[in-house]
């Protein structure tokens, strides 16, 4: 294997691993803010108990996101030094903003979240929660600016082989960014919501911590039910930009080899790159044009319009996109059905649905991962779309042996910490919400809250 392929595998592996944690912790951070806000305004201790449980889980996920993120920043230099030398003047400042805003907000207020409850006033604590949530969202913003610039480079000139920024406003207000950033942010919120709902459903099924479980289940399902249609809409807008600006990627996602007018939609098939055709194809006529342009007559381009060296691989974007959409629709079904029955107080009668919600917790992660596979593999063979090829971005003279040994190292280290991290998160979930938050009255002005609710659920003390 070549250093190029090994470096790509290493980047794909580390970033796939990394994205799981931020997408989860961005969602959970936002949810924690809502819980703390509700606690502040309603005074109900149940919100505090749910908060305390999810704060611990957030702590682990956040920590793993931070440590795995350190590796990402440095890999730009180790493996892709031609990219960083050429695009550093644009990508570097964006990553600098990411690290500065993330640090200034997350790191500072995260300490308050973990250790500061007894030391700061409730409104200040709430404020800190919001700041952490904002920090995680800012962090996602800068990463999306960076990635969207690689997908659709704007606001630059090329001088001496380097990208010189000429218009930062164009980079920061790129329309591509402003559909992709909400798409990512919504993915993170939905991930948090589905995980909360899954945990709530699990407690319900085991007949324990019912009050807390109700909060998790209701809030999770309702939020997911509202956000999923919005997410589908932003997904559609993201598809529009791909259609307009990255026609080769669009053709790969659709496994469309030749121009068609009107174009059909390949529902499922096995793309055959050698023969430039699909096997076992199931195709719906005209639907392809309808999806691409909302008309029944549009002409859609095929992959063979592009010279072979400019075509992305087909199989990965094609299948990844379908898995993403499938996960999205499955979540939509779960969330709508669950929220509908939940609102009518009938959800508890449908144990199979609760089990389905529990089993559905990997869906948002799978959707996020496959969404990124579609975006990133579909951008190939370019690293900066249309301008710099991935093969030309690699570190010169990088030895395949070096790349192989670090790939193995990352696989070992990340697999180990992922396994342990997941075990610890599941252990926290299995232990469930604590009886009394922090062993202190949740609100000093209402000490009865504490004693009145504490013995209500002895099961949850385990």
């Amino acid at each position: 294997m070549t250093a190029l392929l090994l470096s790509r595998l290493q980047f794909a592996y580390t970033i796939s691993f990394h994205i799981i944690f931020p997408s989860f912790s961005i969602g959970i951070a936002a949810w924690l803010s809502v819980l703390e806000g509700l606690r502040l305004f309603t005074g109900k201790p149940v919100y505090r108990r749910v908060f305390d449980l999810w704060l611990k889980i957030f702590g682990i996920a956040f920590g793993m996101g931070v440590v795995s993120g350190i590796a990402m920043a440095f890999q730009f230099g180790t493996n892709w030094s031609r990219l960083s030398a050429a695009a550093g003047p644009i990508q570097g400042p964006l990553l600098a903003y990411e690290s500065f805003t993330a640090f200034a907000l997350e790191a500072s207020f995260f300490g308050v979240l973990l250790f500061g409850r007894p030391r700061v006033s409730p409104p200040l604590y709430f404020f800190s929660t919001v700041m952490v949530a904002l920090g995680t969202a800012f962090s996602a913003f800068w990463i999306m600016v960076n990635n969207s610039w690689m997908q659709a480079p704007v606001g630059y000139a090329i001088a001496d082989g380097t990208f010189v920024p000429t218009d930062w406003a164009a980079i920061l207000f790129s329309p591509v960014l402003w559909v992709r950033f909400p798409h990512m942010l919504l993915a993170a919120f939905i991930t948090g919501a589905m995980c909360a709902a899954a945990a709530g459903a699990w407690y319900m099924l085991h007949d324990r911590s019912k009050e807390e479980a109700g909060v998790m289940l209701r809030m999770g399902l309702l939020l997911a039910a509202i956000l999923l249609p919005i997410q589908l809409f932003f997904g559609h807008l993201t598809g529009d930009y791909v259609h307009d600006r990255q026609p080769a990627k669009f053709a790969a996602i659709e496994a469309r080899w030749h121009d068609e007018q009107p174009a059909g939609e390949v529902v499922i098939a096995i793309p055959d790159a050698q023969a430039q055709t699909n096997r076992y194809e199931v195709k719906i006529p005209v639907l392809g044009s309808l999806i691409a342009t909302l008309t029944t007559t549009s002409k859609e381009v095929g992959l063979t319009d592009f010279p072979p060296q400019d075509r992305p691989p087909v199989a990965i974007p094609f299948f990844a996109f379908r898995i993403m959409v499938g996960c999205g629709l499955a979540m939509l079904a779960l969330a709508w059905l669950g929220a509908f029955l939940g609102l009518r107080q009938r959800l508890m009668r449908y144990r199979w649905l609760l089990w389905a919600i529990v089993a559905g917790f990997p869906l948002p992660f799978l959707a996020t991962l496959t969404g990124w596979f579609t975006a990133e593999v579909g951008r190939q063979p370019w690293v900066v779309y249309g301008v710099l090829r991935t093969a030309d971005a690699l570190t010169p003279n990088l030895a395949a042996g070096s790349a192989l040994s670090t790939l193995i190292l990352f696989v070992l280290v990340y697999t180990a910490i992922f396994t342990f991290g997941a075990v610890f998160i599941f252990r926290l979930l299995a232990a469930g919400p604590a009886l009394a938050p922090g062993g202190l009255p949740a609100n000093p002005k209402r000490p009865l809250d504490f004693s009145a609710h504490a013995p209500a659920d002895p099961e949850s003390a385990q």
Partner: protein
Amino acid sequence: MITFWVVALGLTILLYVLLDGFDLGVGILHLFNRDEADRRRMLAAVSPVWDGNETWLVLTGTILFGAFSKVFALALSAFYLPVLVGICALVLRGVAFEFRSKATRTRRLWDVAFGAGSLVAAFVQGAAVGALVRGLPIENGVYTGGAFGWLSGYSVLCGAGLCVAYALLGAGWLAAKCDGDLRDKAFALLPRLLLGLLLFLAVAVAAALAAGLPIMGRWIERPYLAVFPLLGAAAAWGLLDGVAKRRDLRPFLMGGLIFTAAFGAVAVSFWPYMVPFAITVDEAASPPQSLWFMFWGAGLIALPLTLAYTAFAYRVFGGKIADSAAYDE
């Protein structure tokens, strides 16, 4: 604008070395201390601040990426293996903080991950500085030395030296933060670690002279560089004096001063090169549009805020750690 980012970069590197230096040092000492109560207190002494300390490494990396892209690309590709191995070491020791306390059967494993991770991270940093001082094989701004071009007797010496130096800072931190038995142990270790560090520095300078490293020419061109060893010597004396008089904070501060002197000596003898003698500060700097864009938000607002927050965090977690607060939550 270039000057601003050179100063900012110097500041973040120095802060990283001083701050993560002591918590890596505590990690190294942790490896050699088998007492469970001591180990918990050592973790407690650094647990509230280690991740903030490590963030200075990320800030260093991103400032380098944004403001001096060419050096970022060159240095990281030259130090491919040490950088990525060092990062894995930092990842392992970072999660060990959280995992150790939650683990039941695997606690020993995370102890080793914490200690060995600290040791490896310290070693590769020292080795990288050693390789820069010795000079890297670079042609036309591209590193040509292969996977192990950075590796030499000299870089190994510097790697080992930095482990000792971080351990010195770590012992200074423990003397300042702990009470009783552990404080006594730290005070007993300090003179020995200092002796080790001074020995290493002497060997490193002698080896550099013997090998006729071009960088040593700087000391003849720039005699004012001698101020740094003098400052270091004064700090070493202050450290020993502080140990003798059992001043809690002095050894740590003096250790930091030794580091600052060493950092100043290396930085001034490199100047105006960032990677000696291949690429200068001006050659490496990104275009002004990039530097100004970074300046308005990151430089003018976020960097001072970050400094203020760091100072604040150290105030909040100031003072001795209580024995009951041993890190086992």
